């Protein structure tokens, strides 16, 4: 009798102890045919982590390149060093008063409704010197493709034109591309070309210029050849259509408005807004003051993209993206179709891990309060698109970032 009880007790405890926690099959990250030991990101404000209208540490830590750099550490990446802003604050490029620049926009309740408003930035950030041979983030807010190499005469070196680059340039005469290649990358993310269009588009087509597509193709070829000549592999990102960006479509989101606008090309210099034209987010203040409502107060042309300007933008975007795709294909390197992802986000939206993301201003989750740059979540969506392209091209298994770990617009 006792013998049976012992046997029985033994059997019971064996069952009780047997795998109290379920065994799981682990996911194994792998680098495939690429080498991520020294990942370097080259690009513009998206790569830098500019968000909510300014550059600051919060945005730098949640840029797509920082998220990508972090994920690449699962497959051999050793670090992702950035030229971090030293100040607690942030700084943008809008001069609020002489010598006073904006910091991050924040969402405030103004007269009962939510409104993004700039904070006061810390202009000392632009004077910081954080150059380091260990830097891996060569994202320069405002940089066009054609700013990355030597600038043609009579322009001075780019570090002397753009304080965001001067902060971490190796010398006053350095070039962004030269500095990036001196970091001896084994893998490069190269997402440029946005500002070659945005600088013009954000000025309502009244200032700056679209980079000529032929010049773009030549500069792009040269830059990619320089990157690949070091033995590095790369992933190239293309240029989203401006129609998918809230800065260009938020104001008329509910449809056409019969606004009166300035147009020097017509007799009298003013006319009504035509269907299909775009009013920029930067017009908010002027519209609030009554501009655009009467012939006495027409809305300035710098707040409007007319059909000609939109055509020029659209055809340049198409040409750039064809160039980027063919260069990726010719060189057998990864290509990420960000234009397509932004298209999805701006139409049906993307449902990811329990939330639907869209390009809707403020509430869509993807774009920050400047209407141009991404939130942390938007950056993570972009980083995962880069990861998908890398995995597909290099037969790698780089793990995705968790979108829900990152931030969206903060409501008061």
């Amino acid at each position, binding site marked *: 009798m006792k013998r049976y009880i012992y046997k029985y007790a033994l059997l*019971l405890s064996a069952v*009780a102890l047997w795998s109290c926690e379920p065994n799981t099959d682990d996911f194994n990250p792998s680098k495939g045919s690429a080498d991520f030991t020294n990942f370097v990101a080259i690009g513009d404000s998206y790569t830098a982590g500019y968000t909510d209208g300014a550059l600051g540490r919060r945005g730098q830590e949640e840029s797509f390149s920082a998220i990508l750099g972090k994920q690449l550490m699962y497959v051999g990446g050793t670090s992702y060093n950035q030229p971090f802003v030293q100040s607690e604050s942030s700084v943008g490029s809008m001069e609020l008063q002489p010598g006073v620049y904006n910091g991050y926009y924040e*969402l405030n*309740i103004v007269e009962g409704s939510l409104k993004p408003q700039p904070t006061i930035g810390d202009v000392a950030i632009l004077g910081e010197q954080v150059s380091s041979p260990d830097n891996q983030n060569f994202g320069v807010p405002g940089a066009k493709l054609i700013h990355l190499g030597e600038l043609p005469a009579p322009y001075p070196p780019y570090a002397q034109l753009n304080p965001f680059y001067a902060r971490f340039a190796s010398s006053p005469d350095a070039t962004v591309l030269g500095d990036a290649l001196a970091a001896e990358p084994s893998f490069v993310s190269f997402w440029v070309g946005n500002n070659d269009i945005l600088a013009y588009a954000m000025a309502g087509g009244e200032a700056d210029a679209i980079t000529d597509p032929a010049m773009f193709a030549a500069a792009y070829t040269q830059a990619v050849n320089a990157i690949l000549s070091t033995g590095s592999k790369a992933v190239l990102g293309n240029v989203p259509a401006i129609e998918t960006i809230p800065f260009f479509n938020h104001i008329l989101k509910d449809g056409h408005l019969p606004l009166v606008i300035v147009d020097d090309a017509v007799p009298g210099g003013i006319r009504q807004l035509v269907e299909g034209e775009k009013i920029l987010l930067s017009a908010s203040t002027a519209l609030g003051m009554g501009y655009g409502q009467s012939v006495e107060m027409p809305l300035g042309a710098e707040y409007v993209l007319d059909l000609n300007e939109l055509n020029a933008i659209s055809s340049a975007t198409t040409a750039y993206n064809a160039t980027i795709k063919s260069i990726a294909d010719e060189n057998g390197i990864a290509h990420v179709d960000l234009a397509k992802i932004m298209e999805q986000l701006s139409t049906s939206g993307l449902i990811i891990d*329990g939330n639907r993301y869209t390009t809707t201003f403020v509430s869509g989750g993807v774009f920050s309060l400047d209407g141009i740059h991404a939130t942390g979540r938007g950056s993570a969506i972009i980083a995962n698109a880069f990861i998908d392209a890398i995995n597909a091209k290099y037969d790698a298994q780089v793990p995705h970032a968790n979108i829900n*770990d990152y931030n*969206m617009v903060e409501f008061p």
Partner: protein
Amino acid sequence: MKRIGLFCGLVMLSFQLFAEGYQVNLQGNRQTGMGHTGAGLFMGASSMHFNPGALGFIDKKYDFSFGGSMIFSNNTFQKQAPSTYEAKSDNPMGTPFYFYGATKLNDKLALGLAVTTPYGNSLKWGDDWDGKYLIQDISLRAIFIQPTLAYKINDKLGLGLGFMAVNGNVDLNKALPVQGANGDASANISGNTWAFGFNAGISYQATDKLSLGLSYRSEVMVELDEGDADFTVPSSLAGLYPDTKFQAELPMPTNITFGLGYQVNDKLLLAADLQYVGWSAYESLDFDFEAPTVPDSRNQRDFENTMIYRLGAEYALNEKVQFRAGVYYDSTPIPEDLLTPETPGTDKIGMSLGLGYQINDKLSLDASLLYIHGMKREDGYAPTNFYGTYYSNAVIPGIGVNYSF
């Protein structure tokens, strides 16, 4: 008797999912030891749950049975590749219990009361886990109070009918994808209500060795008319998300069980049950909020009817001691692409052992140990695009006491 006191103390704690869907099949420790078979057996007062038709066959004037189980369950979620994300739930221990008391009114009629917890779910994934917009934690429990009358037509055939009053309680938390200074907004949904149903059974001693039973437990639609929805949102959105009432309903599905018992010899009893569960009643989980600014929530479920296959055996070592063992296969009602972390169901295999001990001619004890292995399931919920691999298991010791005189 100290152990009995312990169980009474645990009764008020939460209850725990661990059959498929949100069903909990742990309504008798003798039956649990035998793979939770029992529809075709004569098991005294606990027949009120398994087959009220068998209640008429109790042989003493009074028959009481009560007990409970401790559910130690584990759920692990591994996010869809490529991802290194893994989450383990921190489930509170589940404590389903049962109480049965029956008396023979005369030779033909028996009357009893059953209190059971055949449905429940308690899962805690955490406030900040990756599926927080689907569910953070949920506690669902139902207590069935069932007065039962049984009539023994003759020495072979018995009928029984029970009326079920069900108290249902739900409390769940989920995050909302809006952020303020303190992170995500959140919603707390809670409510308590009563609902009613019935069960019926027929029990038949076909030969000296073979017994048969068929039991039917009706669907109980738990309709919550005045649930409480409390929102924690940034102050700028507080006007849109006031604390409000909501309506929702959740079915406790129909169960139809056919059971066989076969007394091989004096020592060995074999049992088999086929349990049909009408899960297709659970089409959708919808919350209709009273406040017009709070959007109603529609969540597709579309569960499918399932079968549970059970086998059990009891071996009487001597007059006092019985060993039991059983096994069952419980298929999941949750279709592909509709698997949520709130009810992460999967096909399950249950393996049980049991021990019976007759202390004297009035008092006996039953102990059981059930191990449930959930098949790994790689799936997710398409409407919110949350996919991964779910793993689950549970170890469930239970103890019960029977007293008859």
